[in-house]
């Protein structure tokens, strides 16, 4: 009797595990946000080059009236990405019959994207957090925070790995001038300071995080059921 009960319990647990894996596989829909934010991150690279050129212009010539214009572009991209992610997850849910809620990541993307525009209004926080906002690359961290929430909701090992790599690449790009490392790299390959493409390299900090997300999104395997 006891053995039967234990065997039945063991079989039920096996079935539960199979069903859980199947449901998890069917509801995964994180390919789109990975590709969107990878593509968007890559698309911001020329903005830093343009910003560098504009800031270098002499007084009196055209410059942007608002210094944080790149942060505004990031905010627009993050809000658009959040909205499109909600749409994508609903579409996937209707097609697959099982749906994950992207609520937390979309809230994070939308609110964290606005942080660089409001931090100066908070005197103490502004003083403590300036290293995160001074380079106009905080959007990378906002994407990373949303991805962490998405990985938590999706419970996917693939997404956790890509998110960890992205975050590891994004944090130095936010708090440090990664261009310096690229200058060193170019110097190692024999590029002299006079020949150094300083303007072009301004966009380099976002390239590695973008590449990680794009490769991560492209390598998501389409799942099949036995």
């Amino acid at each position, binding site marked *: 009797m006891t053995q039967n*009960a234990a065997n039945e*319990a063991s079989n039920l647990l096996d079935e*539960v595990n199979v069903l859980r894996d*199947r*449901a998890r596989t069917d509801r995964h829909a994180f390919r789109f946000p990975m590709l969107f934010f990878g593509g968007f991150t890559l698309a911001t690279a020329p903005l830093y080059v343009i910003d560098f050129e504009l800031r270098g212009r002499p007084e009196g010539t055209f410059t942007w009236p608002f210094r944080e214009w790149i942060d505004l572009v990031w905010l627009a991209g993050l809000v658009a990405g959040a909205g499109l992610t909600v749409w994508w997850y609903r579409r996937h849910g209707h097609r697959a019959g*099982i*749906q994950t809620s992207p609520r937390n990541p979309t809230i994070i993307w939308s609110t964290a994207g606005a942080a660089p525009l409001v931090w100066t209004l908070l005197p103490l926080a502004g003083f403590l957090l300036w290293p995160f906002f001074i380079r106009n690359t905080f959007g990378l961290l906002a994407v990373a925070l949303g991805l962490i929430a998405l990985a938590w909701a999706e419970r996917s090992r693939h997404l956790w790995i890509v998110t960890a790599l992205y975050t590891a690449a994004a944090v130095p790009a936010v708090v440090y001038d990664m261009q310096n490392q690229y200058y060193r790299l170019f110097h190692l390959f024999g590029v002299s300071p006079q020949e150094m493409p300083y303007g072009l390299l301004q966009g380099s900090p976002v390239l590695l995080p973008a590449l990680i997300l794009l490769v991560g999104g492209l390598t998501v395997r389409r799942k099949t059921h036995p």
Partner: protein
Amino acid sequence: MTYPTGNLDDTVHQRHRLGILTIASEASRVEFTYLCEVLQLTRGNLNRHLAVLEEAGLITLEKGYDGRRPKTWIVITREGRVALSKEITALEELVHRHRARES
């Protein structure tokens, strides 16, 4: 000290209802047809199990449309998650006790 079978809830312990709760706990909501397919149940059978779970307050049903097609979505409640968690714990305990007794 109670024996683990005493912690098994008849409403949840039934194989298909356990399956419904397991799948629903993995998602924000799950569609009726998906459950029919994965659990290999007829619509009538699934409806009966859903009625039991809904009456026990373990799930809620949301009716909606996909274009012109009516759809029923199943959402697990907080009580449903607690009941599922208790059931899994009881099953694991049962298996562990049996294995400990054998070794």
